[in-house]
């Protein structure tokens, strides 16, 4: 293989291609990362200094005052807590339930296997839409509650397919022998299957956690009148949606304590952007192997 590689390099055209390709990849990396680096620099730079402009890759005057300010703002602090809570609770509940359902509909002997599967898969083709969905939540009395973040999204069909495919790929002998030893379905699921499908669970956990952490529309739709159920993304969204008008939410944050000198809308936006994206940036690279595998399984079968 090494020989053929050096043979490839003999052509001038191939070399030019390689150089261009590597340059292009570096360009891609820069335009992908630059916005985050820029936000990072702004968030750690002194707010008044940032007004002078020309902050691109690195803070000029380091400070953590922006973070102290944003996190001492009770709205943001609460919202971060709610975001974390819905991410943790939502992920645990959803992944466990999805795995349990996937296990049940992967059992070849289960009489309702097909019926349940088709009932779920069919929902990929349609949705009641925004208004009927909203009215349903209202009728169920779930407006202005934390559970509206958890219950309506418990099972995702894509995730269900990923986990089911994974379970179906396990050697059947394992479950057969568990049955021989007298293990019931629940024992088999908890003791045998769950430990074996950790890669699939990791994939689905990442998908659900990212969805939960990033959600703002359900807050806007169902809980916008309850401040103590707001999420970090929704707070950021409010800043974003008002930043074109004169008195932006960021301005209000900045003016709230009468200390316009200390923080500015720009630095607040940058700081909140970093707070809202850092947890994800920290986690996803470590799960890369799993989610790539999960995407391929789900993408082909789903």
């Amino acid at each position, binding site marked *: 293989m090494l020989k*053929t590689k050096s043979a490839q390099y003999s*052509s001038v055209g191939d070399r030019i291609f390689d150089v261009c390709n590597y340059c292009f990849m570096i360009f891609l990396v820069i335009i992908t*990362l630059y916005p985050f680096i820029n936000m990072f620099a702004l968030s750690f730079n002194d707010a008044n200094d940032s007004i002078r402009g020309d902050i691109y890759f690195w803070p000029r005057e380091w400070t953590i005052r922006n973070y102290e300010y944003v996190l001492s703002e009770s709205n943001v602090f609460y919202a971060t807590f709610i975001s974390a809570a819905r991410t943790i609770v939502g992920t645990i509940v959803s992944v466990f339930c999805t795995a349990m359902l996937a296990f049940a509909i992967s059992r070849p002997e289960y009489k309702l296997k097909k019926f349940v599967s088709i009932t779920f898969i069919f929902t990929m083709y*349609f949705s009641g*839409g*925004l208004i009927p969905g909203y009215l349903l939540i209202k009728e169920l009395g779930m407006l202005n509650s934390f559970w509206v973040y958890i219950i309506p999204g418990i099972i995702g069909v894509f995730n269900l397919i990923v986990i089911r495919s994974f379970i179906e790929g396990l050697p059947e002998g394992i479950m057969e022998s568990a049955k021989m030893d007298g293990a019931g379905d629940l024992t088999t699921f908890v003791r045998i299957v769950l430990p074996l499908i950790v890669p699939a669970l990791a994939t689905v956990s990442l998908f659900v956690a990212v969805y939960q952490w990033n959600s703002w529309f359900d807050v806007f739709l169902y809980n916008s009148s309850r401040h103590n159920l707001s999420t970090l*993304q929704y707070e950021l969204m409010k800043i974003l949606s008002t930043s074109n008008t004169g008195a932006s939410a960021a301005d209000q944050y900045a003016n709230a304590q009468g200390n316009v000198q200390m923080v500015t809308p720009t630095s607040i936006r940058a700081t909140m952007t970093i707070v809202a994206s850092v947890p994800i940036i920290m986690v996803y690279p470590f799960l890369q192997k799993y989610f790539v595998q999960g995407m391929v399984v789900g993408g082909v079968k789903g």
Partner: protein
Amino acid sequence: MEKHAAQLPGSTSDDSRLGAFFKSLANQKMLMLMSLPFLAWVIVFKYVPLWGWTIAFQKYRLGRDIFDQAWTGLDNFKFLFQEQQFYLVLRNTLVMSSINLVLGFVTAIVLALLLNELRRIYFKRTVQTISYLPHFISWVVAANIVQTALAPEGIFNVLLLQFNMIDKPILWLGVGEYFWGILGVTEIWKNVGWNTIIYLAAITSIDPTQYEAAQIDGASRLQRMWHITLPGMKPVIVILLIMNLGHILESGFEPQYLLGNGMNVEYSENLDIFVLKYGIQMNNYGLATAAGMFKTVVSFIFLIVANNLAKRLGESRLY
């Protein structure tokens, strides 16, 4: 499914089979316990809202019972199809999802081809990891980034001024005509890396001996990419293309909503925003539901056609 059909009244022909069915079902209490609560969940949260479509045929008033609404027949639909705004948002929806579809496909395929040509494995893996990043961040953060970059004092204007391509800063999001382009580029920025996953997986299943043979025959890098790698990806490309055609009315909601403003509304407002505006904000539930129903029904037809097409092409997608 056949056995399930045996439950239906009238099919008394084989009572023994029915009896056996229920008997074995009784032995599967735990499996039922593990799945039927979720069956109830899916019916409540996914099927019951379909019944809400009746609102499209009513003059729905809040606070009144759903059985106690005034029926108006097809009035909402008549009004909808006469509404100028509806055709505008339909145009925006179709144009934006077509742009996303074409650009999304081309860029992901090209990037997958180029990534595949990288020989330094650590470099390749690092580029891949970084390219997935924007997919995981929220649209709120992405829209924030776009807005910051395109602001009058943002990096985009700074660079263009530096290279003398413009004389004075442009408020990019304030000009409607630019919106589709901005949205297309943003969607690529966010998802191109993620979309390569499935193509790269398809590439790994190409028989390596084909490359060796081509090399012996003196094929250049570009020729090998064109004649071996690309054809190897073709089945996946075709299937994904067909499937995505089924989603042509799904142009997205969050980016348009977050980047849209009063100045670009004629280009940024799509069907989903139309529904939100009329329904939740203006309380015209009937009209909004009619628009939503239109979208779902047309999408449903597209999806069924797309799936049958995909199946006919030899790849089973569902069931």
